[in-house]
């Protein structure tokens, strides 16, 4: 985990003072809303349906237990006792008062948490694999580079007023858990034939109104050139990205309109003029950042300790273990996913009490560290396998041990019309109903891995385009309707889903999803042919037929 030092903390505190002054000027009328809006967005403050929404950054999804308690404190003291974890590894509070925000930020600053650039037309949270640093087979911990990028992009004087928002993601594993192909810049950390560490750089990915899968702009950028190369990309985008039309302003549009070859040339021409600059990362600088990351001192532990053997007779424990526990790169340890998708609950929410309890469990069982995934679940990354039974009982008591990770009821959803002023339709009640329909764990296991993503509007914060099943809320004559897509993927084989037919009304969505699942179960070649693979093999037609036969 990265330890903030005095310099990092000073910057956060200076930012809090600045925002306090900006809020004061807004409330006194010295700043109009038009002037203030851009400033509040740069601190993650949105105006939503009922209230302000406050988005707090969790850099590359890593939290200390102290920080998680800090988030719980804000939920309790300044909000309504809960928070929502997002598809970009951040947390959102829905009921914050503007006048109290500077104090909330000051409280967060005490534990090294900030909200800089979680909104606005600037560079957002650099997201990563929530298993970074502990996944077997990982090239090296991508969070070192995420932190280098975070510092480089924070309050960058040249790139704080881009044409539109800009998102980075970075992975260091063959299986991409960070969805790099749907980001403005996606980075795949790997080593070249000479054993040098570097990045495949992909550009122009993004969802929203016009989804695009990112294209490779350069297959290998050595680590030392990462920041200068990123600066070249940002400078080309800052200067040539469209500013006349908000819907055509993302970098994916520029890449698409120029074509990847021409875009790559613009970037290369710019980069050649600035490559050997102060941005070059020499080994000493990288080591400096690496040295500020602390790692647990792992014990030598057995893979099959007695505690696990004894607990194996408990079917509930086994169901959870088989679902929520993943292999760790260190023998005798495990990565535990905490499902924030209880049956009937809003996906991705956690109460202040749950956050405090999870922080305590992290101290006891995970060296004080928690991770946030873009699937809106949490993880404890350093759990000794002998502690799994005790941990499970504790997690179950606080309601975060539903054994549905990666299954049909592990739904990713945006807040939707219940909260968001951009939404056309609600998403959370749809998710809730689906978890009830598929509450039976045996059924869910029979179905296997199946990602459902729900977005309440075309802005696609629920990432519906890349869901195995995607649900998009639209409005027809004042009523909520939903378009259904299937076949999307967010990983290294990223692809946008295909529409199966006309939009269906709110009351029928759960039935439609059941029909799709039934079609899959009937048509799959073998029990272990995943839904997403069956769709690839069969195409959309058999599912369309089944769903629309009686509609």
């Amino acid at each position: 985990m990265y330890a903030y030092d005095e310099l990092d903390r000073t910057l956060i505190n200076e930012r809090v003072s600045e925002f306090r002054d900006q809020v004061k000027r807004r409330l006194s009328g010295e700043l109009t809303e038009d002037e203030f809006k851009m400033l509040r967005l740069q601190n993650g403050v949105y105006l939503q349906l009922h209230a302000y929404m406050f988005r707090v950054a969790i850099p590359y999804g890593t939290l200390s237990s102290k920080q998680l308690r800090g988030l719980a404190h804000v939920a309790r003291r300044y909000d309504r006792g809960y928070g929502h974890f997002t598809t970009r590894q951040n947390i959102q509070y829905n009921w914050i008062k503007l006048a109290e925000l500077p104090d909330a930020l000051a409280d967060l600053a005490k534990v090294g948490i900030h909200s800089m650039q979680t909104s606005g037309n600037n560079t957002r949270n650099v997201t990563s694999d929530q298993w970074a640093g502990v996944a077997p087979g990982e090239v090296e911990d991508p969070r070192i580079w995420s932190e280098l990028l975070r510092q480089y992009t924070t309050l960058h004087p040249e790139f704080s007023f881009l044409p539109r928002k800009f998102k980075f993601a970075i992975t260091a594993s063959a299986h991409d858990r960070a969805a790099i192909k749907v980001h403005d810049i996606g980075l795949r950390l790997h080593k070249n034939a000479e054993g040098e560490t570097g990045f495949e750089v992909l550009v122009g990915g993004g969802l929203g109104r016009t989804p695009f899968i990112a294209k490779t702009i350069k297959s290998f950028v050595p680590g030392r050139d990462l920041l200068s190369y990123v600066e070249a990309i940002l400078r080309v985008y800052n200067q040539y990205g469209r500013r006349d039309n908000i819907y055509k302003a993302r970098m994916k549009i520029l890449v698409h309109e120029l074509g990847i070859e021409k875009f790559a040339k613009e970037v290369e021409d710019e980069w050649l003029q600035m490559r050997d600059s102060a941005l070059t990362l020499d080994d000493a600088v990288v080591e400096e950042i690496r040295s500020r990351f602390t790692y647990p001192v792992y014990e030598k532990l057995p893979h099959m300790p007695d505690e696990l053997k004894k607990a194996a007779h408990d079917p509930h424990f086994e169901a959870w273990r088989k679902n929520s526990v993943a292999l760790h790169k260190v023998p005798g340890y495990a990565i535990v996913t905490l499902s924030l998708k209880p049956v009937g609950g809003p996906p991705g929410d956690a109460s202040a009490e749950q956050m405090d309890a999870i922080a305590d469990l992290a101290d006891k069982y995970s060296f004080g560290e928690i991770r946030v995934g873009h699937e809106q679940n949490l993880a404890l990354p350093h759990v000794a396998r002998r502690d799994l039974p005790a941990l499970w009982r504790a997690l179950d008591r606080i309601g975060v041990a539903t054994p549905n990770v990666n299954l049909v009821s592990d739904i990713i959803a945006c807040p939707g019309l219940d909260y968001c002023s951009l939404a056309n339709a609600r998403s959370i009640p749809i998710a809730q109903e689906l978890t009830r329909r598929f509450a039976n764990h045996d059924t869910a296991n029979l179905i296997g891995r199946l990602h459902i993503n729900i977005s309440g509007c075309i802005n696609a914060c629920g990432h519906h385009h890349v869901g195995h099943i995607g649900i998009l809320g639209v409005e027809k004559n004042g009523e909520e309707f939903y378009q259904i897509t299937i076949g999307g993927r967010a990983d290294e084989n990223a692809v946008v889903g295909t529409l199966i037919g006309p939009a269906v009304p709110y009351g029928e969505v759960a039935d439609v999803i059941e029909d799709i699942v039934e079609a899959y179960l009937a048509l799959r070649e073998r029990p272990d042919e995943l839904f997403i693979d069956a769709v690839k093999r069969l195409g959309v037609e058999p599912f369309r037929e089944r769903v629309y036969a009686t509609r």
Partner: protein
Amino acid sequence: MTSPLEQKKIKITGPSMVTANRTWDGIVIYRTSRQGWSADLSDAAIVRTSDEARALLTEAEADDVGAVGAYIAPVAVKDTGAIEPGNLREHIRSEGVTIGLSVPA
């Protein structure tokens, strides 16, 4: 409901009101007929023509310090004279989220 934040032309199709959020704490407020705001929908001034709506909105927008994001929204007026939200979005803003808020702890 298509975001009214994208409203450009002002054209109403039935009785309407002007609503916004209070600047300092973000709560939902409704423009009254007394050049003020109320958190209670029953205090909202009702307009029935596009001209009236435009005038009320302009007056509401002038209060940039007190209110944020003012826009025109439909209401339903009952036989009793009671004012109710005119669409799902306004229903949610006035009544709250449609999901159970409790997260099992």
